[in-house]
């Protein structure tokens, strides 16, 4: 049985006004529903630009992105309530507590007050933030902040979740907690699109990947198949093979 496509990226290119070169060139990817899809590449490859286009933060210079739910294409307005976004930055209010942050962003996702209260407490518990739920986030460690960042992105139980380096700069415990929970929600049907520089983490987590370099897709497909085709045993070797060993800015 063929798995339905959730996101269809068709020949997307992006050139910023301040730049002479394309950040993305003719990117075409299909992402299946309930997949964990890794967008991998060196620094400056165009991963964040692609995620920003997929989330509707910036428009592509050319090309199109289509979203499908239950086999039908959905509008931009509907897409906003179906997707969750966890950016690289701590995109929340450091002066507020985790509860206050979740209350605010949850309300922005149109969650009812009652449902929000239940969901908020559930996430605080799962992500190990319940004890610090009424302390200001500004005083938290990097790992705790990453978990709040994640909690905000999934407060509305999105069908598609975008994660831009969700575990960068966190300790092993926090990384484990984050990845474990992401696997859990993926098992319940959430499509995850994920970027990371941690190859071992991506290898463990992703089913399909697209390797991007200099704004172009240099490889895409099922992870094990790509490794076999390139005669390598690990994602890291595949990555080095395809992107080279020179430093990137």
């Amino acid at each position, binding site marked *: 049985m063929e798995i339905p496509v959730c996101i269809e990226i068709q020949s997307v290119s992006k050139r910023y006004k301040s730049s002479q070169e394309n950040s993305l060139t003719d990117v075409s990817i299909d992402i299946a529903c309930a997949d964990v899809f890794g967008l991998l590449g060196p620094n400056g490859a165009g991963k964040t630009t692609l995620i920003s286009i997929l*989330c509707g933060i910036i428009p592509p210079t050319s090309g199109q992105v289509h979203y499908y739910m239950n086999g039908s294409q959905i509008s931009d307005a509907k897409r906003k309530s179906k997707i969750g976004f966890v950016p*690289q930055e701590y995109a*929340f*209010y450091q002066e*507020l507590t985790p509860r206050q942050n979740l*209350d605010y962003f949850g309300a*922005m996702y*149109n969650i009812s007050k009652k449902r929000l209260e239940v969901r908020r407490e559930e996430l605080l518990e799962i992500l190990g933030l319940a004890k610090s739920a009424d302390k*200001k986030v500004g005083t938290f460690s990097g790992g705790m902040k990453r978990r709040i960042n994640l909690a905000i992105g999934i407060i509305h139980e999105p069908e598609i979740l975008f994660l831009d380096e969700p575990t960068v700069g966190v300790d092993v415990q926090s990384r484990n907690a984050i990845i474990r929970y992401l696997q859990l929600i993926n098992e319940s049907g959430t499509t995850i699109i994920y970027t990371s520089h941690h190859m071992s983490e991506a290898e463990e987590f992703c089913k399909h990947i697209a390797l991007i370099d200099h704004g172009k897709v240099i490889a895409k497909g099922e992870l094990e198949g790509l490794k076999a085709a390139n005669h390598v045993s690990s994602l890291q070797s595949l990555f080095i093979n395809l992107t080279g060993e020179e430093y990137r800015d």
Partner: protein
Amino acid sequence: MFKIFSSLRKEFLLLINDKVGLALLFLMPLLLVFIITIIQDSAYKMVNENQIPLLVVNHDSGKEGKKLVALLDSSGLFKVDSQNGIEQSSLKSELLSRGKLLALYIPKTFSAGLESNAEDVSTILMEDLGLEHDTIGQAKVEMPRLSFYNDPVLQENYSYSVMGIIQSYMSVIENSLMIDRMYTNMDLGDKSAVLKKKMISNRVQINQIVASNNNSTVIPNSTQHNVPAWTIFAMFFMVVSLGSNIVKERVSGSFLRLKTMPTTFMLVMFSKMAIYVLVAVLQVALTFSMGIWILPKLGLPQLTVPQNFIAMVAVIFVSSMAAVSYALLIGSLSRTEQQANGFGAISIIIFGAIGGILVPTFVMPGFMQYASNFSPLHWCLEGFYVLFLKGGSWQELKYVFSFLGIFILICQLGTYFKLRLERII
């Protein structure tokens, strides 16, 4: 509704968590109103209520000098310090060493000169009337000159005012002398008193009327300037709190995150504006309460609440919107919190200085008075002046609303285009 409530709640929570911002918004205007009103009220009283210290050196050998000193003393306007032992040559240094600002020197020939002049006037009159009189033995003395010394720190117009007062007392003495001399020459004896009284007391009076639309007798005082002036200053100082609040949200990515959510950015901006307009209204309530209830207890003038309540609400709302819009613009243009705080605060001080908050515009040079038209704080202050001193005339408020309306529009459009350029909107 829950969404709007949550958005307002978030802004409120951010505000109350910003302790420095809160102090600037609420403590600063209270302190400024309190301190500056006391300072300016003292200056106001020095000119209008207290006596002017005047060092007088009377070397006149006649009685007219004493008469002038007595008149100045009894006027209640001067605190006369008679030091007749001082030589005129050392009067300048004495003035400075005694810490006095003004001095008057009455020369030795003061009475003789005035009497001689009165005799001349009387002679002309007698001759014109064809009457004989005795002029033998009367030596001619030059019209005397009084010397008026002033410390250079005094404003020129202040010195001229004091000289004007002395001049008016001189007129009384000169007229009195001339009438006496004429009555004497005409052998009318002591009957001059009635004429002198008539001439001196029956002069044209000047009624001072405050130009107001509601026949209000309220005149500007230190409270009526300082309470609205520093309230407006504090309102605009919200640029430090609101400006850095916006920078933080932009830089942290919260704004971009909101863009991925099923909400409108207008809700974010509306919430910010609503909360900070409320802050501005609270600032007004706080400082006005101080002006009404606390300042009078300290012996300062009480703030008279404007009678046109609707106009007052309109002025407060438009001023608040101007302050909020400016803060939004600075917040959207600044790259860092430091930029927003630094530029925002300095720009408000400059706007305040040229807008008549620190020093009223009417004492500024012409070009600075023209420049004040470009300060939003000036127009806000004008709005409050119209409320306090002109009964809240809608006719005059329309200029205030027009300028502030344009200012608000420019700031809002500037904010919109900058955020759009950053793809936040």
